């Protein structure tokens, strides 16, 4: 059985699943809109948490938050289910498909067969839509893929019950109730205000303060950890910023696209200027990644190179601080 479902590729998996599920239910909402309303943009530094033996840097909010905030702000209801037993998880999925209801699934990437081997890390917050089943093969719409794909029931069970941090536990979700019309205006304002608050928050682990903290640490890394580890950490920053799903520039370009679209919805010309500025900030993040990659490419570098990268990050922190303070007043 196959549900009539339109697959559309997106930059980021969670936005993409939400956007595709909304379209299926008759509401055209773009990926940047989902990301912006769900206040997806962030910067966060969690030095006490290690992934792949390097601290966690993130340019977006925690998995699942984007959809939750988006749903709350536009007034849709989402049903979420998690399972203890694999059998139950499959039965509930099959029941939904039989009901002509495509569902979103949270899965682990490590055992996802259609991903290139090199990309399979223990990352458990990937999202996809299942839109049908033929025999024991499930029809999959994975938003980061150009085309739809398939997984056998065995393969799907493995990725739904991946273990480790953020273990999905068969997590399945789908919207169940919609308002008659989507009231985007209010939702956009709420989304923007929330992001501005996050980015300028007076805590050291999020927003521009976190960028400054990372910059400070980058200067210390070569002496404290040795160049090998320092380069490994720098590489981790670049990967989190630019890897698949970010749309480039640590989600800054997606956010700029959101601001541009919002300026039309809210008929607010100022947001157009903010969009342009955000694009330039994105470009500056790309330059930062390029500079960082130069450092870890030539293995024997002087500490001066690390200072240069740190300076760039400080510039970015300053620029984003001014940006979000001004943006807050513009909506």
């Amino acid at each position, binding site marked *: 059985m196959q549900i009539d479902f339109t697959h559309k*590729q*997106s*930059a980021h998996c969670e936005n993409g699943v939400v956007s595709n599920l909304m379209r299926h239910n008759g509401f055209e909402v773009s990926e*940047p809109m989902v990301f912006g309303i769900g206040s997806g943009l962030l910067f966060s530094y969690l030095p006490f948490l*290690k992934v*792949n*033996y390097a601290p966690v840097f993130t340019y977006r909010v925690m998995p699942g938050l984007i959809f939750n905030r988006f749903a709350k702000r536009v007034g849709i209801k989402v049903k979420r289910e998690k399972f203890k037993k694999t059998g139950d998880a499959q039965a509930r999925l099959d029941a939904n498909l039989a009901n002509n209801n495509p569902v979103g699934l949270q899965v682990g990437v*490590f055992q996802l067969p*259609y*991903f*290139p081997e*090199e*990309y*399979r*890390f*223990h990352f458990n917050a990937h999202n996809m839509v299942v839109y049908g089943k033929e025999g024991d093969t499930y029809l999959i719409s994975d938003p*980061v*893929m*150009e085309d739809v794909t398939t997984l056998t029931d065995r393969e799907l069970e493995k990725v739904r019950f991946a*273990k*480790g*941090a953020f*273990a999905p536990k068969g997590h399945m979700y789908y919207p169940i109730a919609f308002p008659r019309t989507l009231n985007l205006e209010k939702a956009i304002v709420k989304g923007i205000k929330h992001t501005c608050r996050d980015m300028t928050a007076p805590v050291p682990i999020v927003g521009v303060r976190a960028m400054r903290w990372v910059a400070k640490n980058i200067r210390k890394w070569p002496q404290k950890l040795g160049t090998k580890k320092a*380069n*490994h950490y720098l*590489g*981790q920053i*670049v*990967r989190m910023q*630019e*890897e*698949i*799903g970010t*749309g*480039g*520039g640590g989600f800054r*370009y*997606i956010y*700029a*696209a959101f601001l*541009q*679209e919002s300026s039309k919805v809210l008929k607010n010309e100022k947001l157009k200027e903010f*969009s*342009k500025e955000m*694009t330039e900030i*994105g*470009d500056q993040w*790309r330059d930062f*990644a*390029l500079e*960082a*990659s130069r450092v*870890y*490419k030539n293995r024997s570098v002087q500490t001066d190179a690390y200072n240069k990268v740190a300076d760039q990050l400080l510039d970015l922190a300053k620029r984003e601080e001014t940006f979000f303070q001004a943006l807050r007043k513009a909506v």
Partner: protein
Amino acid sequence: MKKGEVPQHKSILESANLREMCYAVDENGEYTTELSTGWNPKTIALENALKEIEERVEDAKQRVLANEASPIVYYMELHKMDLSILSSYVGLWKWRVKRHFKPSVFKKLSSGTLQKYADVFDITIEELAHIHP
């Protein structure tokens, strides 16, 4: 980033026939999307991360062959895992898994426990116990 500037460098994505989506502005300043085959700075970052894992695997192998660590350590590294991921997959406390890293403890493991590890790594108990140099 302008649409024409979206990098199209060679990367690992090519082998899987995959392109990733980037957001960029067109000539009128309007946002649009463009598919990218890869960008060198991040390809290098990924390659370095993979090299790091390879080194860890090789190092683990040498330690197992020198009888300083049990084969579980080797297979853990091979599967890009760390202690907490592995313990969550086998369903044992971290301190127990850590004990099983010792060759002396590993030798005394029951076949049931060994089977748990073998299942996680998708190998037989025989393969788990003997790694090839």
